[in-house]
């Protein structure tokens, strides 16, 4: 069926601010959908309140509404535009729920808008736990024994009937919010109460727990002709009971026989076909009993999801793009494979590599949170790694996490005894996989580990292979003694040079690298092509691996091992920001995407390096070339050696990318824009303060210390209250404000315990001062102030957690002028080429500089959106030296004010102290435009500004 030509304009609903369970994967799918529809000549209108998204960029849609995701906003949009259809399947649960609300009020009907992709009945069937269960029983699909309860009493009765252990699943919630296991009678009442309260309709499903079963997911596409294709099978490393967002997952499924696979496929297809009106991407989850291979259906999500974003990156198949085409009437067989361009979109991708996804948690930000993993998602981001062996993919994933892991090696120095290890791995936690490896090293049997963790033996065997090889490498005390084939095998198994160096003990990672390079043990790059090399593909999407055939001196013939051909174009590498986490998220994906596009506009071959599957910047057709690799020096360096780029852009990928600057500098690789030295000055508190002093710019008194004695000394000098923090950290990690010696000592001790040897910074804290920040672009000669954002809450709350107003609303002209003046002076003095963000404190009319970051900041996308200026495009061209600021005619368009609202995910951590402080805790943000300061929403917010301190 060709596309429905009656659809001329489509409204896409975004997913709003980033919260745990709903992150930038929906920016990825929304952007793809918007591009896919516009390709067809359809007008796209988009609503999302999240300013850090690419989807809300003017280039993505014909009209963008940065409005709260409410029925009122939808009505406003429908009044102002002639919209034929709404596509609610791209914005996660939020968009589906909103579409449903609007439908219930009859608004779609009133404006003659069709729901495409899915109908309300299908949403209800899938989302309402009881309807889903009834539907499955009708279809003859097995499900876990369960009953729906709307009250505590009902819940208790059912629990008694079914028998413990049970699972409580609230209806209509996000990321499993409010759900959990009940193993003991004492926990039942509290768990039921929590579940009921989490559900917007006060409903929970009380379900028999299938502990120890394996969990699988299928990602599917269905068109309105009932064609269904399985795009990807995903196996959870962790057994049933851990939210898939918190599970390590593997693709393709590793331990499924064809009979079990086809049983799942048939069941999923039957469910899809019976779902009702649906055309697009869908996800079905199953549990499998390993003893009998019977399966039960867990859930179905009739929309694109975190899993489909992962599946897209894992297979190369752009699910959201095709899903959008299916929603407007195309059938699968009419579309072409976007990757090969010669074969059909209607096929099932075949993978010739292993994908490992690992979640990234931020429990350090939520003190007191229960870090046991369960039905409710707690991770804030994820990484994906691609390898040609499972150990390689697994270790690459570890290297991508940025928690100091250099592979599957212990991240903490604390050594546990055997009994402790065995006890530790019983409870699923963020570092369980590292402890499982320790347990195997300690000699605990696979059988025992399997019994206590329920993790499939196949995965445990793989970890055991890593341990065996590790032991073997350890036998050779010197690098020179290490046999070549052992070194080869270590690389094939994903060991980093650093891991090998630590195992042989007598050398550095650099020496391992040089040694193996001499032996020709180098990475080759393979393509992600959807079809296991069966057809020639055009997509420039690569990952690294080691192949014996490629590195063995004995190979003969004309095989091409390295598929990444280097062009003779001038190239620039853009470094991404790794996994999302608090303090470093979607904003940097926005920056990288624009950086790539701007570099392309300037005629460069733009190369992206990142490992975050939720991002737009790693989409298959954004960069000229994509290396889906850890942002980890060893990997980056081999890419640089292969590609020989003109330079590397580190300014757009947050602190992660910036951390690579020192290595690049040492290797003599050109850093695009601001030099390593200017970054170092800004990062190094001592050098920066000296500079400010010299320029006559005020800053809070400060000092540095390495131990508590020194710290007490410094505190006396600068005067209490003081702000204590480690150097080189992200989002105010471990930062605290203390008011006396006793608190200070406690703070210093805890800091040194977690970051031994770190230099501690102690600043005088300007109590009750006002905070503001400036983002600017500098081309070395001229400085353009992008915007001044004034924080509503007084100092003491991390800038990422405070409401901020653009432009400043309360500060005096003199103060504003002074900030502008300081910003310009600092930018020029640091010889910034590109972006800089400077934080100020204002007290008693005096302006102090708190810190400067010569890179894209969290607020850069916000300012670009609020003013409607393509600032990232401008900044990239400036840092590349292709343009000067004077070449641009910058016109800021903003009536009134734009307010940045932080958004938190505290509901995932009921016991956590919600008090805000110098350490950032928000997971996302929204933008709100107000005409003037009389706006009632703003007045309330302003009146309550000080209350946020203890909220």
């Amino acid at each position, binding site marked *: 069926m060709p596309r429905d030509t009656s659809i001329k304009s489509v409204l896409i609903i975004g997913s709003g601010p980033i919260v745990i369970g709903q992150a930038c994967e929906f920016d990825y799918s929304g952007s793809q959908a918007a591009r896919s529809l516009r390709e067809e000549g359809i007008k796209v209108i988009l609503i999302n309140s999240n300013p850090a998204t690419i989807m809300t960029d003017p280039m993505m849609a014909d009209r963008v509404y940065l409005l709260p995701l409410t029925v009122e906003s939808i009505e406003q949009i429908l009044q102002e535009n002639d919209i034929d259809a709404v596509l609610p399947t791209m914005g996660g649960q939020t968009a589906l729920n909103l579409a449903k609300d609007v439908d219930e009020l009859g608004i779609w009907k009133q404006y003659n808008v069709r729901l495409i992709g899915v109908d309300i009945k299908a949403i209800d069937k899938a989302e309402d736990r009881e309807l889903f269960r009834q539907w499955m029983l009708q279809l003859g699909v097995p499900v876990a024994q369960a009953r729906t309860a709307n009250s505590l009493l009902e819940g208790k009765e059912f629990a008694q009937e079914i028998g413990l252990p049970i699972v409580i699943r609230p209806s209509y919630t996000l990321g499993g919010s409010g759900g959990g296991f009940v193993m003991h009678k004492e926990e039942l009442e509290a768990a039921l109460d929590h579940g009921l309260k989490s559900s917007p309709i006060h409903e929970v499903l009380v379900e028999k727990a299938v502990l120890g079963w394996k969990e699988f997911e299928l990602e599917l596409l269905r068109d309105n002709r009932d064609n269904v294709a399985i795009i990807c099978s995903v196996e959870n490393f962790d057994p049933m009971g851990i939210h898939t967002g918190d599970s390590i997952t593997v693709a393709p499924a590793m331990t499924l026989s064809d009979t079990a696979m*086809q049983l799942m496929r048939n069941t999923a297809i039957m469910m899809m076909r019976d779902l009702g009106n649906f055309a697009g991407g869908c996800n079905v989850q199953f549990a499998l009993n390993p003893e009998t291979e019977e399966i039960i259906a867990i859930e179905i999500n009739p929309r694109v999801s975190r899993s489909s974003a992962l599946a897209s990156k894992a297979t190369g198949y752009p699910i959201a793009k095709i899903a959008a085409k299916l929603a407007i009437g195309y059938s699968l067989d009419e579309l072409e494979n976007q990757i090969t361009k010669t*074969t059909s979109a209607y096929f099932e991708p075949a*993978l010739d590599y292993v994908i490992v996804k690992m979640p990234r948690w931020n429990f350090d930000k939520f003190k007191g949170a229960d870090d046991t993993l369960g039905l409710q998602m707690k991770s804030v981001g994820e990484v994906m790694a691609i390898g040609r062996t499972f150990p390689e993919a697994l270790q690459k994933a570890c290297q991508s996490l940025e928690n100091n892991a250099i592979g599957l090696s212990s991240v903490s120095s604390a050594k546990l005894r055997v009994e402790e290890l065995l006890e530790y791995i019983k409870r699923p936690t963020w570092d369980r996989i590292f402890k499982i490896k320790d347990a195997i090293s300690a000699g605990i049997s696979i059988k025992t580990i399997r019994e206590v963790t329920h993790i499939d033996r196949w995965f445990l065997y793989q970890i055991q292979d890593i341990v065996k090889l590790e032991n*073997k490498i350890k036998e050779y005390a010197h690098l020179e003694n290490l046999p070549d084939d052992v070194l080869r095998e270590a690389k094939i198994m994903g060991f980093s040079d650093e891991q090998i160096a630590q195992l042989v003990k007598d050398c550095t990672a650099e020496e391992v690298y040089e040694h193996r390079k001499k032996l020709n043990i180098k990475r080759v790059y393979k393509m992600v092509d959807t079809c*296991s090399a069966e057809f020639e593909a055009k997509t420039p999407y690569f990952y690294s691996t080691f192949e*014996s055939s490629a590195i063995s001196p004995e*190979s003969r013939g004309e*095989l091409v091992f390295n598929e990444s051909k280097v062009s003779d174009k001038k190239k620039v590498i853009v470094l991404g920001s790794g996994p999302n986490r608090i303090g470093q998220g979607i904003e940097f994906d926005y920056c990288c995407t624009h950086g790539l596009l701007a570099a392309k506009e300037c005629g460069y071959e733009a190369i992206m390096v990142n490992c975050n599957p939720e991002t737009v910047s790693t989409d298959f057709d954004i960069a000229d070339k994509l290396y889906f690799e850890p942002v980890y020096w060893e990997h980056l360096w081999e890419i640089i050696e292969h590609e020989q780029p003109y330079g590397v852009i580190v300014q757009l990928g947050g602190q992660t990318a910036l951390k690579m600057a020192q290595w690049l500098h040492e290797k003599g690789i050109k850093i695009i824009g601001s030099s390593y030295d200017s970054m170092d000055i800004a990062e190094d508190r001592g050098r920066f303060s000296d500079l400010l002093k010299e320029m006559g710019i005020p800053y809070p008194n400060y000092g540095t210390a390495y131990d508590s004695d020194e710290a007490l000394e410094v505190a006396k000098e600068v005067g209490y209250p003081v702000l204590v923090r480690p150097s080189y950290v992200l989002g105010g990690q471990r930062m605290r404000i203390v008011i006396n010696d006793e608190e200070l000592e406690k703070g210093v001790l805890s800091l040194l315990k977690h970051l031994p040897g770190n230099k501690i910074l102690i600043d005088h804290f300007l109590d009750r001062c006002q905070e503001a920040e400036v983002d600017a672009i500098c081309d070395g000669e001229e400085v353009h102030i992008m915007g001044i954002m004034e924080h509503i809450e007084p100092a003491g709350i991390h800038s990422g957690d405070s409401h901020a107003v653009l432009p400043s609303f309360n500060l005096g002209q003199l103060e504003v002028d002074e900030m502008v003046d300081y910003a310009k002076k600092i930018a020029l003095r640091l010889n910034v080429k590109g972006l800089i963000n400077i934080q100020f404190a204002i007290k008693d009319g005096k302006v102090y500089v708190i810190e400067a970051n010569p890179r894209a900041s969290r607020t850069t996308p916000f300012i670009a959106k609020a003013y409607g200026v393509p600032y990232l495009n401008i900044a990239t061209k400036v840092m590349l030296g292709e343009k000067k600021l004077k070449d641009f005619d910058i016109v800021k368009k903003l009536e009134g004010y734009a307010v940045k609202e932080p958004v938190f995910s505290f509901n995932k951590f009921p016991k956590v102290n919600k008090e805000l402080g110098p350490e950032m805790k928000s997971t996302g943000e929204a933008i709100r435009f107000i005409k003037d300061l009389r706006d009632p929403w703003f007045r309330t917010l302003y009146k309550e500004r000080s209350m946020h301190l203890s909220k």
Partner: protein
Amino acid sequence: MPTQTESAPAYLLLEDGTYLKGKSFGAKGTTGGEICFNTGMTGYQEVFTDPSYYGQVLIMNSVYIGNYGVKNEDTESDSVKIRGLICKNISERYSRMIADDSLQDYLVKNNLVAIHDIDTRALVQHIRSKGAMNCVISTEKHEIEALREELKQVPDMAGLELSSFVSTKEPYYFGDKNAAIRIAVLDYGVKRHILQSMADRGAYLKVYPSRTSYTELAEFEPHGIFISNGPGDPASMDYAVATVKQALEQEKPLFGICLGHQILARANDIPTFKMHHGHRGLNHPVKNLQTGRSEITTQNHGFGVDPESARNSDKVEVTHLNLNDGSIEGIRVKGKPAFSVQYHPESTPGPHDSRYLFDDFISMIKERL
């Protein structure tokens, strides 16, 4: 258990001089055949025992083989039929509670020489561009010259008749003998699940050796005739074409799969040809031109039906097309109860989308009872 570096070496030589060192798996020895690749991610045991692979050395594109061991039921014939196996990684230790054995022991029992730790992706790309060719794997010889000598012993696939080697020697029965429908099966290397698919639908089968005349088939008084899949070049099988022609003349309901499809085409004067590198996998999209619906199919063929002749034929109608390359996937003989498909609707391994074809065959027979 030895770690990978300790396992014995094995060597691979291709006709064009490509030479790679890998590691031995399965039986020790030397083997050779035509190299081909399969992109399926599940069902390795079903593939290895599929008689259509007779004479071929198979590359598995999927990076892991052996993860879930082997199970006696998951076979398509009584033994491993591939000549050799080339893999990236082989799991020596498997995980499947209901499995019967490890792949390693199974391959040793079946005397299959296999090699792993090979850059299978680079090799597949090479075959994709250079086309199918012969190869040898050896754990005994590693000098290129010695291997080249071995390679000379491997026959050229074009023009090769192989069905006689895998077909049953004596006729046998399959299914419930009281069933209402009788089907005569021409066994050119039939997969067990094809027989099962017909038996499950209420048919009693008699399976005949490849060189069986129509007269002999007729003695069973079959309601329908099934032309099976199998290895080798259909152009070398005039004996089969003759039998099928006679069946067509008698207006017997006929259904052909894979090689059977090619033979039905040849019986209607449509030539077949050796493909550049064939279709082998579980993800090939096929459009059913009669219903407009598409299906994901299991495929395993190195020869194909000439598209031009099929389209222009006045004897047959093209019913199914491959969505990737437009190749002929199904035909129906005009005015006769006979049809065939190039792919494998029994789909072991693979998606079950096409199993309706067995229903169609049974209905076609029932209409004529």
